């Protein structure tokens, strides 16, 4: 059974049709590159899967179950985690506090619940180790490099038992060395059987880590094929419209 199934997803913003009848299936542990020019509908699609927007038409199934996401938390409960483009980190908090933001570990003392810092530091350290990142749980996020910030955002998706991680342009604004770190992190997720949807403009990244590439143009899916049977030239043609359908 596919992990995620999208059937005929459409989204209108007033008169603007951002998505038109998009079908997509993703298998467990699969990495799918989602590509397309600006305004092609990639981000809208990801936001629908993540529960930020509701689709105007179509249905979302996870493990065969029809889902109705009203807010991001609903999608998270269903096993969908998101790494946002700006990473959605709080600079003034520690790495551990960011990882656990919104789902802190607590300890009951009498009638009150207090934050369980030792447990959160330990768990965060474990996650960073698992991701082979040098990030330290007690460091403030504002002092971190781009790659470390990515590790924090990705560690967050490992807290719950995520089945699908959506990554919106994770390598858009970081250095070459850090890009390699992030691609490594994506491999770690795949190793653990987690499916990844990678939105990216960078052809080499998609060809380095993804099993499949999906190309969007003007709100439609124009290609969906195995990475081994495609090429950067073909994908570029599909994105720009030089090649119509593959």
């Amino acid at each position: 059974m596919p992990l995620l199934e999208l059937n005929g997803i459409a989204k209108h913003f007033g008169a603007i049709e951002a998505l038109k009848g998009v079908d997509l299936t993703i298998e467990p542990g699969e990495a799918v590159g989602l590509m397309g020019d600006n305004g092609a509908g990639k981000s809208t699609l990801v936001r629908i899967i993540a529960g930020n927007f509701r689709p105007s038409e179509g249905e979302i199934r996870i493990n065969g179950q029809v889902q109705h996401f009203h807010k991001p938390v609903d999608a998270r409960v269903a096993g969908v985690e998101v790494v946002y483009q700006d990473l959605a980190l709080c600079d003034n908090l520690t790495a551990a506090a960011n990882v656990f933001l919104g789902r802190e570990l607590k300890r009951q003392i009498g009638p009150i619940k207090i934050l369980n810092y030792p447990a959160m530091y330990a768990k965060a350290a474990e996650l960073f180790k698992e991701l082979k990142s040098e990030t330290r749980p007690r460091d403030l996020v504002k002092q971190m490099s781009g790659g470390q910030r990515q590790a924090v955002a990705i560690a967050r998706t490992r807290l719950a038992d995520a089945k699908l991680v959506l990554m919106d342009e994770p390598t858009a604004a970081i250095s070459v060395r850090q890009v390699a770190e992030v691609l490594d992190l994506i491999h770690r997720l795949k190793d653990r059987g987690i499916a990844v949807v990678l939105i990216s403009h960078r052809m080499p990244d998609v060809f380095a880590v993804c099993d499949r590439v999906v190309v969007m143009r003007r709100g439609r899916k124009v290609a969906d094929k195995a990475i081994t049977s495609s090429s950067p030239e073909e994908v570029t043609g599909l994105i720009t419209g030089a090649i119509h359908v593959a």
Partner: protein
Amino acid sequence: MSTTQLPTTPSSVEIEDITGLKERSLSHRLFASQPFWVTVALVVMCAVMTWDQPDAFASADNFYNITRNFAFVGIMAIGMTAVILTGGIDLSVGSIMGLVGVICGLVLQGEGHWGIAVLAGLAAGALAGAVNGVLVAYVGLPAFVVTLGMLSIARSLAIVLSENKMIYEFGPYGDTFIAIGGGAILGVANPVWVLMILALIFGFVLNFTSWGNYLYAIGSNENAARLTGVPTRRIKLQAYIVSGLTAALASVLIVGWQGSAINALGQGYELRVIASTVIGGADLMGGHGSAYGAVIGAALIEVIRNSLLMAGVDANWQGAFVGLFIVLAVLLQRIRGKRSA
């Protein structure tokens, strides 16, 4: 030394790493914290004044006066800290204080029980805070404008309710009410006890509960907090209610201490309260501040005021000195911010 790579097993590197980090962060955090330097300034100022005026400044009477005087502003500054942490501001606390004072006075004048007067006052403060909070958090209006409106509305209500008269006939339960705000336990004024207890509670809440953690998160990146599942609107609403409540609490105490309620009570207090939090290290952009900082900021302002009086400086110069410290505090913040970034 700490940057050199140790050629040992991974586990021992890790321990080294963690202990090294701990030591650095403790001393580093202390010296990088604004409340620490404000405390140093306060101690220095007290030492100088004690040396200069051993009889007048360092007397038990003066200590009693100073602590009681800043207790009211300090209590409000703690509530204000919750709002400022979220990146908001509450300009209405002075007017809420006035409104609450008049309500307490009217209940007592109508021969109501002192407990009812206190509860009615706190309820009025919480309600005014809730109105602020709903408009800011749920309707999405700017905090500055909403609370500026409340500043005007609450003051106007205070004047209307009091029929622009002073309320001083406190009825049969007046004595108890006056004892609450005007009394002392073990030689320390009651408002000071309230301030200390409140500071301890808020210090705890800000550091050890998820509610406190969320205030910092919202002030830093509200969008991120919402996306990760923090109930940002509810938390912001609650912050404004807390601010309204602390203003009401300060009002109940100050009316008891003064033994009368006037509708002009608390006029201009909002600026002293905000100044206290800023001097104590709160960032008006949100995300930084502490309960201790709010209290120590309020204390510093009062000690400056008191010292100038004792030193025989014309009272009209007070505003200039307090203003100078506000600007210095923000300057210090800026310098620290650059260094840590």
